[in-house]
């Protein structure tokens, strides 16, 4: 797992710093400048990632049907699924510095100019992306342009400038933060370098946007309890290996008949199902377990699928969480 951690740092640190330099002119507000959520929102929050359970368990439909009135914080990859289903999140968290993939979550105006890339088609995250990519992209551009001004972007300084430009174009308010990428007390700390450059507050990431969303809801919004959904960090039983996120990379290192050795099976006792995960998702899982353990916050896993089971994580059905938390929301919020 140390190799994945080191690889992640090497892959993201320098490009992230270069992006931060380019993003400097737009860093007007930090996450510490966010206005408090309205009392009508109550004390709870749901953070959302874009894992396969999001559509397998019809998570967004449940949130909508049960009229959840608390705060909704989504990773960028989950925003499109929300908007297509008529749910407008309060916040979208953006942290991955990839130069061309991330803008896709906001609708990419330059999609036609990009090299063909099956990154989105290959994923089981949102079946809507598996077909009619151009039409879906155009639809997302329209949806983000329409609803963007109502969604606050929790923007990491390292994110690609094209994403920042797209958000600004759509009128989305930006609130900035630096990802804590290494020990800020160490000599030549990258995190300290980012801080010295930008002056933005620094926050632990958890390794991906979904984890960052959950951390943000706890640390900045000070919500409690905070549930998470769509955070499988693994693949459902029966998912073909070719549909996994790092398949194209793993197949370079393993012969086809031994490819399954690269994956790790995890039994989910709540579902009595055996899911599987790849090295990167397994690293995400370990990161999240570390955050939960070290922070002391309880994480309510309402994903209803996946591999995230461990100390400090309470498994709970989403409808139960929502029903229990609606009481903290003021009735005036009912629309």
């Amino acid at each position, binding site marked *: 797992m140390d190799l994945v951690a080191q*690889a992640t740092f*090497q892959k993201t640190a320098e490009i992230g710093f270069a992006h931060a330099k380019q993003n400097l002119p737009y860093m007007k507000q930090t996450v510490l400048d966010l206005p408090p959520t309205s009392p009508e929102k109550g004390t709870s929050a749901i953070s959302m990632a874009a894992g396969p359970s999001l559509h397998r368990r019809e998570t967004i439909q449940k949130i909508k049907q049960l009229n959840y009135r608390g705060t909704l914080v989504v990773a960028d990859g989950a925003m499109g699924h929300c908007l297509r289903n008529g749910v407008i999140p309060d916040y979208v968290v953006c942290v991955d510095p990839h130069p061309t993939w991330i803008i896709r979550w906001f609708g990419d105006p330059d999609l036609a100019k990009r090299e063909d890339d099956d990154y989105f088609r290959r994923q089981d995250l949102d079946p809507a992306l598996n077909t009619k990519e151009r039409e879906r992209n155009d639809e997302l551009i329209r949806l983000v342009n329409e609803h963007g001004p109502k969604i606050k972007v929790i923007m990491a300084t390292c994110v690609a400038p094209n994403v920042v430009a797209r958000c600004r174009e759509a009128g989305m308010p930006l609130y900035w933060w630096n990802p804590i990428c290494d020990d800020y007390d160490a000599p030549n700390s990258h995190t300290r370098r980012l801080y010295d450059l930008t002056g933005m507050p620094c*926050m632990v990431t958890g390794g991906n946007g979904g984890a960052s969303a959950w951390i943000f809801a706890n640390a900045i919004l000070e919500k409690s309890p905070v549930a998470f959904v769509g955070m499988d960090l693994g693949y459902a039983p029966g998912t073909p290996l070719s549909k996994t996120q790092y398949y194209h990379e793993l197949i370079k290192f393993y012969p086809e008949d031994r490819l399954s*050795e690269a994956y790790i099976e995890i039994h989910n006792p709540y579902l009595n199902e055996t899911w599987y995960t790849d090295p990167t998702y397994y690293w995400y899982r370990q990161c999240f377990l*570390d955050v939960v353990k070290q*922070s002391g916050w309880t994480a309510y896993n309402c994903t209803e699928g996946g591999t995230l089971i461990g100390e400090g994580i309470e498994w709970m059905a989403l409808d139960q969480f929502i029903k229990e938390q609606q009481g903290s929301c003021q009735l005036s919020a009912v629309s």
Partner: protein
Amino acid sequence: MAKLIGNYTVPGQTTENVKPGQAGATEREKAEGAHQAQVSEFERRAMGKLGGSIAFVMKGKNVLWTGDKTAGSNKGTGNEK
């Protein structure tokens, strides 16, 4: 995760009788050094492809850091040092 392996000769496999410091050994050691560098580079590039979205570290219970000056916010888990 499994160690990445290449189709190379295992060190000592063909020249195991040559002692370190001998001419043959020096050549072999150089070749091994170059090979190890190649393997390291291969691993670095391989893992670069498998890396996650963003780096992650956490010091104790600290979730937020706002520089060495006194933080303007008491947010976090309340145990910042």
